[in-house]
């Protein structure tokens, strides 16, 4: 019944699923047999033994099944929570793939430049970290075979971590209603052996990598004008800021992760670095989501300062 388990923690989820089926089945069986048996045994006109039950007896029965149900459910909660907690820590060397959801298609960008629409090629056994955002409404990246689902929100990055461990093509759906062609926003996730994946990525049109495209955009959109040792404008140097906390005007620090860099590009007057004036123009509508993804890839890789 369940689709094939194609990610490392799918078996754990299937185990929890069958445990829940077993416990629910037992309770349903218990209730239905009692219903049918009592209905049959105590139907009107039969000579079965009746008479009132002592209130002490009914109270004890009540308390036992209340406590029994409570502990069963808390046990199920604990088991589910432990499976969840096992999936939270992200393996450090995960392969980061950017996914941009747009009304009714999935646009995927691999770190070394390959671009795909409604398809995602993955090497077997490599932990994957999908960094996803949406250009318009809420979508949801759902691959039943990996047992993963994560809503993709506009204006924010959401992450999805899994490790495929079976070769094959698995269906990809959009699970959050997103408009007219919500049911057409599907695709395929192709898991290949590392060799096949390497051959596939070579065969892709040799577009330059995300970082290279980011470098070109860095000058094209005028970022270099201020951020690279300009005499006229006082702008923070972006060399190697990714992953380091930045001092904010008005005190406090903010970690310069993808979300912070994205917000600073789209709405710069938001969190201004200490000691600088909020003069940077907003790139909302100028830079698309893909451009922002490329700029951030560039900032992460080369640190954004060509002069040094």
């Amino acid at each position, binding site marked *: 019944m369940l689709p094939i388990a194609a990610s490392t923690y799918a078996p754990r989820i299937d185990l929890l699923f069958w445990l829940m089926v077993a416990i629910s089945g037992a309770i349903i069986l218990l209730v239905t047999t009692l219903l049918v048996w009592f209905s049959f045994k105590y139907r009107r006109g039969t000579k079965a033994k009746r008479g009132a039950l002592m209130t002490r007896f009914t109270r004890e029965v009540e308390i036992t099944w209340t406590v029994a149900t409570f502990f069963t459910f808390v046990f199920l909660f604990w088991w589910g929570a432990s499976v969840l907690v096992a999936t939270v820590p992200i393996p450090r060397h995960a392969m980061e793939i950017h996914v941009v959801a747009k009304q009714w298609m999935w646009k995927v960008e691999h770190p070394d430049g390959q671009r795909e629409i409604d398809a995602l090629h993955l090497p077997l056994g490599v932990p994957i970290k999908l960094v996803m955002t949406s250009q318009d409404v809420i979508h949801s990246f759902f691959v039943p075979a990996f047992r993963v689902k994560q809503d993709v929100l506009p204006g924010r990055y959401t992450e999805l971590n899994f490790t495929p461990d079976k070769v094959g093509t698995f269906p990809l759906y959009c699970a959050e209603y997103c408009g007219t062609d919500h049911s057409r926003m599907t695709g395929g996730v192709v898991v290949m052996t590392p060799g096949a994946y390497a051959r596939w990525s070579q065969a892709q049109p040799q577009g330059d990598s995300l970082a290279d495209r980011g470098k070109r955009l860095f000058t094209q959109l005028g970022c270099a004008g201020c951020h690279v040792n300009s005499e006229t404008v006082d702008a923070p140097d972006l060399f190697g800021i990714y992953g380091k906390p930045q001092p904010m005007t008005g005190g406090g620090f903010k970690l310069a992760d993808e979300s912070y860099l994205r917000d600073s590009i789209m*709405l710069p*007057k*938001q969190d201004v670095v200490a000691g600088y004036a909020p003069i940077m123009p907003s790139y909302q509508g100028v830079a698309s989501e893909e451009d922002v993804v490329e700029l951030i890839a560039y900032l992460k890789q080369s640190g954004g300062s060509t002069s040094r």
Partner: protein
Amino acid sequence: MTQPPAILNEPWRTPERQQVAMQFGIWLFLATEALFFGGLFLFYAVSRFTDSAGFEIGAREADIWFGTANTAVLMTSSLTMAIGERATKEGLVPLARLMVMATLALGATFLVVKGFEYRSDIEKHLVPGPAFKYAIRGAAQFWAFYWTATVVHAIHLTVGLGIVSRLLFISKEDLPERWTTAIGTALYWHLVDIVWVILYPLLYLVGRP
């Protein structure tokens, strides 16, 4: 303390039960209003929490003088309503009618002052949208809350004026008998005042000076 006689509605046998039931019903309605405005204040708390710097920049634009004046006007109208309600219960009809008229006048003053404040806000381009003064997210959120909350409150106040003016249409003779209606009207008016009293610090005292 013997209650003055009151008009008995259908299912009730004694005025005391009817009056307690009516107040209980109105207080339940006020609980729904607390949740209604609770949802609105949740929006305020979330947007202030996510972007407090920008929020304060937007909030400084709110005019403190209009706000304080309006708060004073509304609290005074609460006073006149309270006196009017107590006077109706004591049977002091002229004082009661005077106080009800004073409450209506103060309520109208609040709306007029609000109108002037809206006009100056619009002139200062404080309506979130294409012509909005700031590009900062927090500021747009503050002013989205400002317009929604104050307009919803103004609607509640206008409905309150309608309910309070109903007391004036009761003839002088049977006004004392309708003291339960007066209590209900006063409860609603005091709620409108409480909502504004909570709104005042949220709108006007953020990030001063």
